[in-house]
């Protein structure tokens, strides 16, 4: 491996050599996270001290060109000591290892470094924790790592309690699409915190995918999907409420769709032999306390979302025409003429739209990145419709709607296969 994998620099390798074999590895990707990296590493080490006192542990920071002192803070954040200064807080040395790129790099490259580190130190279980989540707690890390380390689960996805307008891409597209195609009910396809076994880390590292743009953009989506495409054991761990250090903006939505939908479509493309024959869907074992997945809302700028939908449908007409069926395209154009109050992009039309995009991606009717970007305005239309419909809905009603959408995706799966296999 060392001879081939020259993407690990010598200093990083030397640090890993000194760490030696470990039981647990935590990877923290970072990019200008000085505001939160300190609390993140504290939470990680506190979790070690509370839950893994005997284990050999290392925390690896892979930094994508921070200029705000993130890495320095990671390395120098204070270690918690026993209050009375007597005895050890944990039995072993808790290593911190950092490597940094001088410039911004894609998430896939960061992920690959973490997986390589895991393989080199022969970690039995690993977790990736993002400093973007501003409320990481020691119990999060324990909830993710314990199934991977003690129960030999290969991929542990998080399950967050989100306010009803948070995670809309997952709720409206990624979750229903994955559930319908791959037949597994995994809620978070874009996790910023997740865990995996050392075995799964090696498996992922050795797949010939790292040059793929889609994987480079959203490796966690690929890992999640691949975990249930093969015979790996998958579970979800409920972590509680998730808070972001930065608020999502319009630009983030474009990027999120490009990255995660791109990765999902790529997985569908590469794993069609797996999902084509699957019908229905199976629940994934979930650990953690009783939980509510949906909580109270935050305010969103709905008017702007609707305007972006309308302008997108108009500007991208040529592209949409080549992607969508005439009936679907006509319906999209029709609803784009409706006024704000009467607008609706319902589950049936949305499912059909998403499937036609997936099939077009498969058939490569045009540049795949352009194709996925063309989905963004339609996704905004779906979100606007969702917000309109659920303005007064309770968390339970939102969950019921999500379930109904998933069932619609599952119901129309034959249509997806038909479009997928169509020869044009």
């Amino acid at each position, binding site marked *: 491996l060392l001879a081939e994998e020259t993407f690990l620099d010598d200093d990083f390798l030397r640090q890993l*050599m*000194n*760490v*030696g074999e470990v039981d647990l590895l935590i990877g923290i990707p970072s990019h200008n996270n000085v505001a939160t990296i300190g609390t993140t590493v504290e939470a990680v080490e506190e979790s070690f001290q509370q839950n893994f006192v005997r284990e050999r542990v290392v925390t690896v920071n892979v930094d994508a060109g921070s200029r705000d002192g993130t890495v320095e803070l990671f390395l120098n954040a204070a270690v918690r000591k026993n209050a009375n200064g007597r005895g050890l807080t944990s*039995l072993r*040395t808790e*290593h911190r290892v950092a490597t940094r790129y001088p410039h911004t790099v894609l998430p896939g490259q960061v992920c690959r470094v973490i997986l390589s580190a895991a393989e080199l130190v022969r970690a039995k279980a690993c977790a990736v924790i993002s400093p973007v989540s501003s409320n990481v707690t020691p119990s999060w890390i324990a909830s993710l790592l314990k199934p991977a380390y003690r129960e030999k689960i290969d991929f542990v996805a998080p399950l967050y309690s989100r306010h009803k307008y948070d995670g809309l891409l997952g709720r409206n597209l990624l979750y229903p699409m994955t559930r319908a195609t791959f037949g597994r009910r995994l809620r978070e396809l874009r996790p910023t915190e997740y865990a995996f076994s050392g075995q799964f880390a090696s498996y992922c590292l050795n797949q010939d995918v790292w040059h793929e743009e889609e994987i480079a953009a959203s490796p966690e989506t690929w890992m999640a999907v691949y975990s249930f495409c093969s015979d790996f054991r998958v579970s979800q761990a409920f972590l509680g409420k998730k808070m972001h250090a930065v608020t999502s903006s319009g630009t983030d939505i474009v990027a999120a769709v490009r990255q995660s939908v791109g990765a999902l479509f790529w997985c569908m493309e590469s794993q069609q032999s797996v999902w084509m024959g699957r019908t229905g869907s199976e629940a994934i074992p979930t650990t953690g306390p009783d939980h509510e997945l949906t909580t109270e809302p935050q305010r969103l700028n709905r008017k702007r979302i609707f305007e972006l939908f309308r302008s997108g449908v108009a500007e991208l007409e040529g592209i949409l025409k080549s992607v969508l069926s005439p009936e679907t395209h006509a319906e999209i154009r029709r609803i784009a003429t409706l006024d704000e109050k009467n607008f609706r992009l319902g589950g049936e039309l949305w499912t059909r739209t998403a499937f036609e995009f997936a099939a077009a991606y498969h058939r490569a009717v045009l540049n795949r990145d352009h194709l996925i970007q063309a989905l963004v305005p339609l996704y905004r239309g779906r979100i606007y419709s969702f917000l309109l419909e659920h303005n007064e809905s309770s968390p339970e009603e939102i969950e019921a709607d999500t379930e109904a959408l998933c069932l619609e995706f599952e119901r129309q799966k034959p249509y997806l296969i038909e479009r997928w296999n169509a020869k044009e």
Partner: protein
Amino acid sequence: VAEQGRSLWYKDAVIYQLHVRTFCDSNDDGIGDFPGLIQKLDYLQELGINAIWLMPFFPSPLRDDGYDTSDYFNVHPSYGTLDDFKKFLTAAHQRGIRIIIELVLNHTSDQHPWFQEARSSRENPKRDWYVWSETDDRYKEARIIFLDTEMSNWAWDPISKSYYWHRFFSHQPDLNFDNPAVFEMMWQAMKFWLDIGVDGFRLDAVPYLAEREGTSCENLPETHAIVREFRRRLDQAYPEAMLLAEANQWPADVRAYFAEGDEFHMAFHFPLMPRMFMAVQLEDRKPIIEILEQTPQIPDACQWCIFLRNHDELTLEMVTDVERDYMYDEYAKDKAMRLNAGIRRRLAPMMDNDRRRIQLLNVLLMSMPGTPIIYYGDEIGMGDNVYLGDRNGVRTPMQWNGGWNGGFSRADPERLYSPPISNPVYGYQAINVDSQQRSPHSLLSWMKSLIAIRKSSRVFSRGTIEFLRPSNHRVLAYVRQLGEEKILVVNNLAASAQAVELDLRHYKGYIPIEMVGRNLFPRIGEVPYLLTLGPYHSYAFRLRRI
């Protein structure tokens, strides 16, 4: 200043701890004795030790291996006579070996005439030599030490119909040091043995001398005052004599027993010992470094006493619950190995008889700050017998040869005070002094060279310690320094070979000379100094500027 004009011999000592009963039987009664011990002094001299700590040998009913004294001014008849002891003392001194004896200040046996008098009537003059109460609810904050056997620190005396105070076994009533007559009597006992020629005392159970309501009855100011007065008298009359404290406490609490250099000369560093074992099992230096970082500075004339194993269980009182659980899981999987809050095993079995691990721990013992104590038999890797009850499993006869009773005694085996170890791995047929003396590569021979290295430089006994912190946590490296003399010690705590880069820029220009083979290593420069170490391997380098 207290230390001026003194040799501070105890700082440079390598102490060998033994019980006369266990060492050599000269009169074939199955019990070791002083004439037998005299026969073995040449062996101890050859080993290289220069002090012996004798466990209790005063008259006693032996319900606690002599820690239940019934006469402070004589020798237990099983071990010989007072005259035998004097001969032993002279012979030891002729060989340059100092003698430290045990003095149990805190309590006596309930068979001691003082206690018999005290309990005989409430009006007896000796009554106030012990701590009595009409109820058993005084001093409730005091913990019970022997949790496995005692329910209370008070015991009912059916003769005088009242309760007496005991911090240890109920047959060991505590003396009342609030009574000046008790103090004076114990001083007379000290003087008695010092006049004969002993070099120091290991004072047993020191923290418990005084009792006060509303306290833990440990480490009280009144206890320190008692110790200070003993020390003052000692300094006046016997300035070369040494006091060693048994205070199983955290270093910060033990520190008070050094005071301003006017209480104890030495004290055991109890928390370091389990952490040396922990570090080797974890393959991680963290436990050792953290406990030494939590260890306060002590006056120049004072010294810590460090040890790997002794006559008691490997005490786990001074560790956290997490650490204790780990030690039990790793070193005492069989419940029979556990006693009180500790592990009743010897060094070699704890190390799975791995010669490399035994050596590593001994290197740590000899190179850490403090005066090292070797427990008898550990220099040849003796085993234990956890089925003997209490702590008797680590107090079995010394194994001198592969013959009758391992050379310990010519008595019938049934008559021995304890069955010798006789299993195929650790039995006297396999592990004994004779066979190891024949081989230059035996553990015994290796121990001799290690002790010789330790004694070759006062850096080990008096020098400062500075930990190096290479990135490889499996390597424990430190520099000991005294004046211009410097010694670098590097230990691989792991079962696998390790490479380590040491930042030795501070010693640029020095040449490391390996202390066993006296080979020169490359001169230290600006770049990290690379060393590779085999499993559990150690290096000690004298750093010379040539």
